[in-house]
């Protein structure tokens, strides 16, 4: 028995998926969600074997949704047109269905999913799915704390601090913990607005008040909130070239 969740914001698109699944008696649909919030909740609660996932949805996209899930099931993406997204998940997803699709194409994707579920291989493609978001700079970051989901506007981020496998995002007077690498953030945050001033810190340029000498080889960045962030020698060089002093 394969347990499936369908996540799509359009009722007719969900209807289409259910129609295609009807022929497969070994499949049981345990939940049907119309947005990413409900999707996260349903996946966490039911741990399904397979999820049919749309990408463009209200509030959070299919990709952002995956970032919030502890144990990612097999995913078949269903999308209408998303040239960048297709590139991104071609490598990592079980399969992707371009809407509209035929019953044959649907069956093909489902068979691929069966094989993956049977072999139960915990391969790293699942892990990579977490980072397979749309290309281009980040405009927001989605964070889950317990059952609560926050969407952080990157314009409100003050600084980001590394914490083992996680990062702590300081934004709008609050702290958010997120499983993400500093490298990923450094590469995807807009490079004119954020700078990695230290191995463990990324600061928003707009939040910077002044830079002070700390020790012989290091500096301190003082933010408008009067918080003090260490600046490495390398980070100081980056700051100088970006701010031109």
């Amino acid at each position, binding site marked *: 028995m394969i347990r499936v969740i369908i996540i799509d914001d359009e009722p007719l698109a969900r209807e289409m998926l259910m129609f295609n699944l009807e022929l497969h008696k070994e499949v049981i649909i345990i939940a049907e969600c119309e947005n990413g919030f409900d999707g996260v909740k349903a996946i966490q609660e039911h741990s399904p074997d397979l999820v049919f996932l749309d990408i463009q949805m*209200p509030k959070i996209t299919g990709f952002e949704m995956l970032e919030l899930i502890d144990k990612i099931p097999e995913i078949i993406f269903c999308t209408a047109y998303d040239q960048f997204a297709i590139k991104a998940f071609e490598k990592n997803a079980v399969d992707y269905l371009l809407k509209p699709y035929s019953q044959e194409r649907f069956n093909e994707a489902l068979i691929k999913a069966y094989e993956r579920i049977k072999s139960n291989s915990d391969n790293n493609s699942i892990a990579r799915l977490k980072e397979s978001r749309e290309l281009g700079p980040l405009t927001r970051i989605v964070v889950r704390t317990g059952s609560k989901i926050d969407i952080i506007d990157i314009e409100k981020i003050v600084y980001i601090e590394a914490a083992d496998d996680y990062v702590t995002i300081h934004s709008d007077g609050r702290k958010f913990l997120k499983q993400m690498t500093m490298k990923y953030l450094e590469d995807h945050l807009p490079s004119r607005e954020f700078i990695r001033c230290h191995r463990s810190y990324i600061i928003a340029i707009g939040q910077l008040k002044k830079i002070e000498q700390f020790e012989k080889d290091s500096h301190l960045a003082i933010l408008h909130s009067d918080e003090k962030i260490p600046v490495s020698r390398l980070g100081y060089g980056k700051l100088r070239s970006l701010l031109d002093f």
Partner: protein
Amino acid sequence: MDHPFLLNANRYYFITMWVAISAAHIFLLRYFFETSMDLAVADSLSFNILFAGLSFSYWFAVRFSSNLSPTFAMINHIVGGIFIVGLCFFLSNYFLNQYFNITSEYTATLMPVKLFAGLFYYTVIVLIYYMVKYYFDLQEKINSESRLAAAVKEAELNMLKFQINPHFIFNSLNSISALTLNKPEKARDMILKLSDFMRYSVKNKQEEIGNLTEELKNIMLYLDIEKVRFGDKLDIQMDISPDAETCQLPNMILQPLMENAIKYGVYESTESSMINLIAKLADGILHIEIKNSFDSSGVPAKGQGIGLKNVSHRMQLIYDRDDLTNVYRNENLFIVTLKIPQIPSA
């Protein structure tokens, strides 16, 4: 490039000028040298007609020399000048010798005057030619520049025009695909609406201005299709005053605004959302207001406002004013207003 002395009334000025010069020539001969009337007329006409003819054709030499380097052009004109003046003098003298009994003293006395006058005419004419040529070139440049500016503007306008969003097309096709399963009537209805919508947007690629009724008909098609996709999540109210219906506006200008409203009102919202369209005519200006509710807790994904920017840029290009598009936003309302000047019926 035509000969400047053949353009419009210039030929008459050219002839008048040479008649005046010839008359002056006759007068000078009669007054200072007391020649006979016959000789004075023959001398003047033989020299001046020859000179007028040769200098007339010299235009082509000036045109040709514009391809040469300045030094070569200068040598060209000096040699040309000496040749033309010399030729006129000798031919005219030869003619006078044939028919009149002139003394060598007469020839010798007049030679420097004639040569000097010839060089003077020649210089003036070459300068006129150069000025004309410069003027022609300038005109040509201004013309090609304005042609280029018009082409750039047209290309820009074409680029800013609404393009059907592929995301919308494929999602609509997917909805149709789902409807064929057990609601074939609705599927057919949606196919018809989608084709009408696409036909309108393809047709209007060519034209710039349309009227509000047509535009609203198309907007309704679009909204009907979206309603099938999103059901009662979409609540639309329209308030169109009767005198606004025949107003003119740029084709497909409302489409991107509606799309924006739906994108941030419906696509990004989990609740149902309201879209309100008001159109009225006041003081010869069509006022349009599109208002949509949005969820202020949401953080918009990327790509925000490109449709809006294109609309505002297009309005600016068409009407040459930058105060026609306005955007207001408060906690949970997003309002775009357009002011569209109505050109008095031409």
